[in-house]
């Protein structure tokens, strides 16, 4: 019971982190039609920039400055790269971001090397806030929850209560119409791309100390972010939130469960082979749920797409 509560909190932390990434991506994706493969690379840049800033000015300045720097870099990429490629169509755009992801990874390795960076939680948050059973809940985790929820509320406010937000929302549903209404769509695109990548950068800043800061962190998270927004439905902020939390809890509970596939096989009336190494199904007999936890979201995505191609909350075709 205690473990379930702890898992709920942990899943929430991870889910909200995913949301910060997928919120930006879903905005970019649905407005510009760009599958931004480099999105997680901006997340990585956030962590690296924040580390660099934190060595001079401390964690908090890194938290403030790094996302802005990442956002500006993202806007620059849109202005001087993506906008040029946009005329060729969506596949070249995707390949552009693909190449960009490669370049950013190389850039990071060139500047900071290949090793893990000692980017850690600020001392002020490096304590256990409370315990559930013998499990500590680190203060930093609670801090992450607050930052993510803050960002969500801010996004919600901007999108539903401001003029810019109205334009963006309209563009989400009717991308072509907005252009005809005389809005400066290239500027909106640049802004959305900048804000989206900035959000990814912020996610990197706060996730870096928790999940590690190393050159592989972008690849590790890259495709799961796509999975999230596809499951949630493109263009739907609520969908992104629901899917993020769903994936967060699903992977967390899968990892901490001790379900064995042997139980299914037994239930199917199969007999456990005496000599395991001879059995063709030996891998199934020893398989546990935690072993496949991280690939569950992919299964879910394939299922969702086959049954409902526009995702859980999407209105438009993906």
């Amino acid at each position, binding site marked *: 019971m*205690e*473990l379930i509560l*702890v*898992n709920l909190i*942990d*899943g929430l*932390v*991870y889910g909200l982190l995913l949301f910060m990434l997928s919120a930006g991506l879903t905005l970019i994706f649905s407005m510009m039609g760009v599958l931004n493969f480099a999105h997680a690379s901006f997340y990585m840049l956030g962590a690296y920039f924040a580390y660099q800033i934190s060595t001079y000015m401390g964690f908090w300045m890194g938290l403030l400055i790094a996302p802005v720097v990442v956002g500006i870099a993202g806007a620059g990429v849109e202005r001087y790269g993506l906008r040029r490629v946009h005329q060729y169509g969506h596949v070249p755009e995707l390949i552009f971001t693909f190449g960009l992801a490669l370049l950013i*990874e190389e850039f990071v*390795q060139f500047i900071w*090397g*290949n*090793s*893990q*960076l*000692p*980017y*850690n939680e600020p001392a002020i948050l490096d304590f*256990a806030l409370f*315990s559930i*059973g*013998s*499990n*500590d809940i*680190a203060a*930093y985790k609670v801090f992450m929850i607050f930052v993510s929820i803050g960002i969500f509320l801010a996004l919600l406010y901007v999108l539903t209560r401001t003029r810019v937000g109205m334009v963006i929302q309209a563009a989400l549903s009717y991308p072509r119409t907005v252009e005809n209404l005389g809005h400066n769509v290239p500027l909106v695109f640049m802004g959305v791309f900048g804000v989206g990548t900035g959000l990814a950068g912020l996610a990197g800043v706060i996730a870096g100390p*928790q*999940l*590690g800061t*190393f*050159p*592989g*962190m972008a*690849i*590790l*998270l890259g495709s*799961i972010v796509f999975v999230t927004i596809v499951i949630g439905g493109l263009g739907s902020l609520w969908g992104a939130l629901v899917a993020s939390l769903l994936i967060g809890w699903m*992977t*967390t*509970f899968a*990892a*901490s469960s*001790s379900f064995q596939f042997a139980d299914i096989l037994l239930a199917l009336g199969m007999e456990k082979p005496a000599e395991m190494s001879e059995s063709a199904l030996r891998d199934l007999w020893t398989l*546990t749920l*935690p*072993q*496949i*936890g*991280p*690939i569950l979201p992919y299964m879910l995505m394939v299922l969702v797409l086959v049954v409902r191609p526009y995702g859980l909350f999407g209105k438009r075709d993906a």
Partner: protein
Amino acid sequence: MRKTVKLGLGAALALTVSASSLFAENIKIAFIEPLSGFMAGTGTSGLHQYEFAAETLVNANGGVLGGDMFEIVAFDNKLSGKESLVQLQVAIDQGIRFVAQGNSSGIAHALIDAINKHNKRNPDDLVMFLNYSAVDPALTNDKCSFWHFRFDANADFKMDALTDVMAENEDLKKVYIIGQDYSFGKAVAAAAVSDLGNKRPDIEVVGNELHPIIKVKDFTPYARKIIASEADAVITGNWGADMVGLGKAILDSGFEGPIYTYYAAADGITATFGEAGKGSLYLVGTDQLNPPVSDRAADYITAYKTKYPDGDINQARIVNVVEMLAKAINEAGSATDIVAIANAFEGMEHDSIWGSKIVMRAKDHQAIQDIHISEHTDEGAVFDYDNSGYAPVVKSTVKMAGADSATTCDMKRP
């Protein structure tokens, strides 16, 4: 441009990467490791250690066979089996007879498989595999080869030594085993279960878990489970980011007991754990750096750190590889007669700079040596890692670990 690759760009582009050797008298060792990509740090660090060892321990002393110098030739395998095989072929075409590799047992399997086939099909052009850190036990058991020599202790030996030490701790009642879901992770888990069962049947294995390799983003749920299981100690074979992620999650969740590891050091890992890992992280491995065993060892490390201030000697057995290869070549009297060199290796005894005696066991080509259990700490860390002030410091030693262990190796000799 990499200093060690002496080929002109034009020549290489023309694909004539054949034996156009500018240094015909040099004895070349092909170093096939990831030199680009996310594992490049480990690869480059290994390359520096090889170059330094060849330079200071062999070449500076007049080389082998009365004047032949060692030369390390680097090949980037991009951590890919396929690329390793391509680069192996390039190396063989350059007339290289010695192949050194160690990161990833999967690639080690691919390489030795290819070398076996090559040697069978080209008996006049033999190649030898110097495995300095791939620890999958199968390489010196079922899959053993006459052309393969392992200088690291294999995963079973290390677990044997580790459980020897654990068995002495009477407070230990419950142990949790967690590892990456692939051959090495499974080998560690299997060895831990069987060794603990033999040595301390009263210790309960409260968890035996595999997680997908390099796929887990957040290790917290695994850590929660470990704590909920009320384990007193954790054993893991994780490396790289999986080690950092798991270790940090366990420590953050309030785990108090020891975490026994294989690879929780260097390449940024030591610095990342820093103070948090002190008193919790233990490492099992060969070669003692801290405290230094002799002035010679200390001088060697100091010289290395002077040359590479950002680097560490984190794969110290490389020194043993280079010294023993020099010895074997001298004994065989030839740098090209691979069979004679292999025969010289078999049963060779060597006093390592790191204080251990090393015996290259003839029946399976597995080096038998001391295995140490070290603690991640800043106390007595004379030679720290990652310039962090912390390093693994040896706490206990198992002499000539696994010397009388059995092997399923059925060595086929030429």
